[in-house]
């Protein structure tokens, strides 16, 4: 990353003796779309307010374009915020709301007119200049809030759960529009959200936070496929956690292990040693599931499960539209969720409750983590 627009170095924040943020170090590239993802109370909003200038760090350094900004108030930072509840000025028209920042910057009226028109066009609100915020729908108010922020051409746009008040359809649509806007404006966006889908759909990189810490920073794909711990794995979508013990190293990055009572082969870039207890993480869609009788009949099918062969019983099926979820109880009593696609050749589901099944996974799709619980 050659030129970070924002850099945080070991930033700490305490509220009344409580640690809200601990040792946050983060670099945001110019033109990057970054999401801060975590449950409420994880410190993501505090971090955003720190960058916006509404809070100050207890210790640590915050650089904006390479310059320390400690003590510089929000009105003097080249950063604008889209607030969660929009925070539009109710006594001003849409035009005046959007023009507010430009007026504070003492721009000429002609310039203001041009820039406001351009910003409103960007968010598709041309023609609503004279309306009051209260006369607009939630989605339109959201657009005004975005226009009001981007019209000032900030270096960074901060978005605090901007879509949480919108319904599902509108949220999807606004996600795409925000992403498009970020590409055209080519400024950095920092989005705070607790919605993993939202973070994944829009971001170049995602920062997963918990309890004031950064748990993992990575591209959506890295976060989803290579979570660094159980917390991250569990937060970003459904996951099955199998427990096991490493028995021996059987090759480079390949290990023989005992997982949930079955002999399996694991791949991991981590340094695990024989005798070590581990978690084996598998997404529901990473599993392969076949009927035990089919596997017994077919030599090829049997061979294709060489890596792992866990036995279990189908408990329930959940229809999901494009896919269906199968709940399987393993022999040792553990329950796992498996997502299966519909078989294109047959209209019937391949499994029914009570079926004896063999469970395996595609080689290398498992994530091996040191034992935590």
């Amino acid at each position, binding site marked *: 990353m050659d030129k970070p627009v924002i850099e945080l170095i070991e930033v700490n924040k305490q509220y009344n003796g409580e640690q809200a943020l601990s040792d946050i170090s983060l670099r945001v590239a110019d033109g990057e779309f970054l999401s801060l993802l975590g449950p409420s109370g994880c410190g993501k909003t505090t971090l955003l307010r720190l960058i*916006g*200038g*509404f809070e100050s760090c207890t210790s640590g350094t915050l650089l904006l374009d390479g310059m320390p900004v400690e003590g510089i*108030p*929000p*009105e*003097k930072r080249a*950063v*604008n*915020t889209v*607030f*969660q*509840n929009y*925070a*539009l*000025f*109710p*006594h001003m028209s849409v035009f005046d709301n959007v023009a*507010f*920042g430009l007026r*504070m*910057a003492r721009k000429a009226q002609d310039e203001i007119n041009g820039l406001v028109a351009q910003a409103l066009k960007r968010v598709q609100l041309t023609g609503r200049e004279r309306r*009051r915020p*209260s006369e607009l729908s939630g989605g339109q108010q959201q657009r005004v809030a975005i226009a*009001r*922020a981007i019209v*000032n051409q900030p270096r960074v746009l901060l978005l605090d759960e901007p879509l949480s008040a919108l319904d599902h359809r509108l949220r999807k649509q606004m996600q795409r529009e925000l992403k498009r806007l970020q590409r055209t404006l080519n400024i950095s966006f920092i989005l705070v959200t607790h919605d993993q889908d939202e973070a994944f759909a829009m971001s170049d990189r995602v920062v997963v936070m918990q309890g004031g810490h950064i748990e993992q920073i990575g591209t959506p794909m890295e976060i989803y496929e290579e979570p660094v711990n159980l917390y991250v794995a569990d937060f970003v979508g459904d996951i099955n956690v199998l427990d096991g013990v490493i028995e021996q190293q059987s090759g480079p990055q390949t290990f023989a292990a005992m997982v949930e009572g079955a002999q399996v082969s694991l791949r991991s870039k981590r340094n695990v040693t024989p005798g070590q207890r581990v978690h084996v993480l598998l997404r529901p869609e990473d599993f392969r599931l076949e009927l035990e009788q089919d596997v017994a009949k077919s030599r090829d099918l049997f061979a294709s499960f060489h890596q792992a062969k866990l036995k279990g019983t189908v408990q329930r099926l959940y229809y999901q539209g494009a896919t269906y979820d199968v709940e399987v109880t393993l022999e040792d009593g553990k329950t796992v969720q498996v997502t299966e696609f519909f078989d294109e050749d047959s209209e019937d589901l391949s499994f029914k409750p009570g079926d004896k099944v063999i469970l395996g996974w595609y080689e290398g799709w498992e994530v091996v983590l040191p034992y935590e619980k």
Partner: protein
Amino acid sequence: MSRRLKWIYAGLVYAFLYLPLVVVAIFSFNDSKYSLAWHGFTLRWYEKLWHNSSLMSAALNSLLIAGCAATLATLMGTVAAFIMHQYRFPGRKLLFGSLFVMMMSPDIVIAISLLLLFLALHLPLGFPTLLVAHAVLCVPFVATTVYSRFHGFQRDILDAAKDLGADEYQVFRFIVIPLALPAVVGGWLLSFTLSLDDVIISFFTTGPDFEVLPLRIYSMVRLGIKPDVNALCVVMMGITIVALVLSRTLLKEKE
């Protein structure tokens, strides 16, 4: 049928409430000094009122005290409301609760306690003591009105203004004042009417050289109701209604 009953019922309620006022208004135009019978229309009581210098000076005193007390109470109440909304400090809840105690306290209690205070401080009763008393009466009404207005805005609005480059003064000038203004003006008008028609507190806290209208009327009616008092009541009713309508209009949310 039931519709008709409703109309009759509503009519009776309104008659109960407003008939006395209507009667006063009618008699203020009655061309007879003592009789309760109708002797024809006249404006002579209004004319007489205009020439009654003691009544007119009491009226001017009342307007003066109402204007001053309302202004003082509005300044104090608005600042109090802003502080209570914007800052968290020890005793904030107590302060806020005491506003309601003040509003609920019987006037006579406020009047006597103020009188005791003024006597203890050896303050001569007159315009200054009456002004303080009326301001005390009105501050809680202004503070709660303005507070609820502040409470209606989203907290983030002030942050948003700063975020867009407004400094403290500009936030106050372009956001806080315009948003609070209807409540501030409404609070002023409410205070004005409260002060204008107060009898009890005025009775205890003003001196002989500063007589206000309600007290003047009170002393006049002890000798029987004269038609020029009726005329005066109608004029005061008019002022109160105008102030009330203005304050309701301003306090009504525009959105």
